[in-house]
């Protein structure tokens, strides 16, 4: 546990200091989105990495948060902070209710059910034009504000979003090392065994599903207030898959891995701009290579790679490459 505290403090310090060398650079803007994606990846990791349940529809929760905040603040002028809480509770509650029947399913049936769920909500975002503005989007969402402090530039949004993300990470680290975390890992390894040990598997899975959905909704609200404009294309099937990819590329069950995955996949398009139209090929190839050569995700892969390179450099035969 002590190690975890140290890790978190170092991570938080780095996050807090990162804007200093960036000043007004557009990279700061990219890092704001890294923050939102990290929040989402951490939320999905709770479900995927800890409870071992796949979801190919998480973009729907993200979208629900964004649209609840967007519609209620832009069209009805309600208090944004109140709506964020309301959105988290509503979406979490909805996930809790839906979780009971859906999480009964296993493997690819669960994949299919969550996928279908995501598509249904995507269609709803598109079709309820009176509320959401439909495919042309919903403009005019206000920035968040506390008193006279309005979160209207990248720097302020950076600290707002990373503040929430760091708090969530803290919550998840705690959760992972609690009784619940151990129970979750037991489910991941063997549901039957966990049940035999007296874990209420079903309830626990549904609770995690709801928590994960609620965090995603918060991410959605923050996204809406940062962008001040939302449209359904940001909440489709592709984004759900991208989230799953972030979690797996980062490292299943590792919270900091989720950050690495989110950071890589958010920064990648910027780095791949050099490839022009062919960035999609580079992206696909990278996914394949990473899965083959870094099966444990970035969080294990990078230290392994470093060790490997180090052993090559010093001429020693590294036997360590397998650990991590």
């Amino acid at each position, binding site marked *: 546990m002590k190690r975890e505290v140290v890790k978190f403090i170092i991570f938080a310090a780095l996050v807090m200091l990162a804007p200093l060398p960036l000043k007004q650079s557009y990279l700061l803007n990219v890092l704001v989105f890294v923050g939102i994606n990290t929040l989402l990846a951490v939320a999905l990791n709770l479900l995927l990495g800890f409870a071992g349940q796949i979801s190919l529809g998480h973009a729907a929760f993200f979208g629900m948060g964004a649209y609840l905040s967007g519609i209620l603040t832009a069209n009805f002028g309600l208090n944004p902070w109140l709506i964020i809480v309301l959105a988290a509770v509503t979406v979490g509650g909805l996930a809790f209710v839906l979780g009971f029947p859906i999480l009964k399913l296993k493997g690819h049936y669960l994949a299919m059910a969550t996928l279908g769920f995501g598509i249904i909500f995507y269609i709803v975002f598109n079709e309820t034009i009176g509320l959401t503005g439909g*495919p042309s989007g919903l403009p005019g969402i206000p920035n968040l504000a506390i008193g006279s402090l309005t979160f209207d530039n990248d720097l302020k949004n950076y600290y707002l979003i990373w503040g929430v993300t760091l708090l969530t990470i803290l919550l998840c680290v705690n959760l992972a090392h609690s009784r619940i975390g151990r129970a979750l890992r037991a489910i991941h390894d063997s549901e039957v065994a966990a049940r035999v040990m007296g874990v209420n598997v079903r309830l626990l899975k549904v609770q995690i599903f709801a928590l994960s959905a609620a965090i995603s909704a918060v991410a959605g609200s923050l996204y809406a207030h940062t962008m*001040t404009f939302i449209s359904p294309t940001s909440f489709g099937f592709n984004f759900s898959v991208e989230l799953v990819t972030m979690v797996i590329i980062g490292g299943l069950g590792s919270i900091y891995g989720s950050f690495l995955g989110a950071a890589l996949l958010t920064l990648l398009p910027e780095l791949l701009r050099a490839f022009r139209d062919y960035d999609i090929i580079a992206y696909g190839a990278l996914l394949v290579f990473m899965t083959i050569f870094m099966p444990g995700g970035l969080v294990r892969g990078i230290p392994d790679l470093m060790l490997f390179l180090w052993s090559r450099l010093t001429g020693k035969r590294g036997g360590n490459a397998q650990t991590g």
Partner: protein
Amino acid sequence: MLGKTLAAAQIALLVLGVGNSALAAQPIKIGALFAVTGPASFLGEPERNTAQMVVAEINRAGGIKGQMLELIVYDTQGDATKAVQAANRLIKEDRVVAIIGPSTTGDTMAVIPLVEKEQIPLISCAAGIKITEPLKKWVFKTAQNDSLAVAKIYERLVRQKISRVAILTVSDSFGSSGREQLKAQAARFGIQIETDDTYGPKDTDMTAQLTRIRGSQAQALICWGTNPGPAVIARNAKQLGLKLPLYMSHGVSSKKFIELAGDAAEGITLPSGRVLVAELLPESDRQKKSLLGFVKDYQRHYNKEGDHFGGHAWDAVMLLKGAIERGADTPATIREQLEKSRGFAGIGGIFNFSPQDHAGLASDAFVLVEIKNRDWLLVK
């Protein structure tokens, strides 16, 4: 570990960035955001091609008053988040003086708050009426409003004494904008919408919707979409033996549609920019010179037919060129000069911007064409 990686990535990106901006101090930098890949690539690709072509032609002719142009294009993939990131990069990293695009209404709406705050003129290539109404200080557009295309079709229907129509629109931002206008203007023309159906952008069979339409009282069918959907609809309508006259949108105003729909395209009527029928226009037409120039250049550069959508980018670059020629060189002066563009005969129509109007086109920007013998026929 994490920190190091992050820091390394940041340094790498910073170095790249500095390298970029140090390289090109001289030319005037223009940014462009197009949906080159993704579902809206039918817009983004011709727009990107056209913009690059026009800039290359301007530079070949010695630039604008001796100054070269540099065009920096980023792909938005039709995704609002990516559009905003790319716009940020254009403004803060590349330090462009103006931005052309984005291609879709959604991307444009996403970028508007940013350009308004950073005070960079934006010339959108998207058609949504929301872009320039209400007026935004820094935002212009070159694509004709969908309302003009709808009006063109409705005027024809009124002349033919048709008052009951069925509409079938694609469920993306192009189709929903058309649908909104079709519904909004129906009453003004005394037209009644009998059925209001949609189809998905990737749907492969629309016989169900068409069967429903066949069972209704509609006297004509108006379909709003971009390839390949409308081609599927034309073929499905032929399969079902649907007798209604079929109207399409300017979304399919290219030879590609005729190629895809084959015989089923015969007799379909659609509004289009003049680019489609450039050859058929009378010599007195003010746009004819621009249109023929664009068509010829595009054919030479890409060995393809230049289309309506590429035309939006042509107009945007040429409007910018005009502004710069009149002495503008900073974002603020470019905006001022853009607002003073009058009587510019482009591809989309004759542009007259003013402090009250940042769309600048009148209702004659569209003509109505009919498909006959696999070619276009100007409808009088």
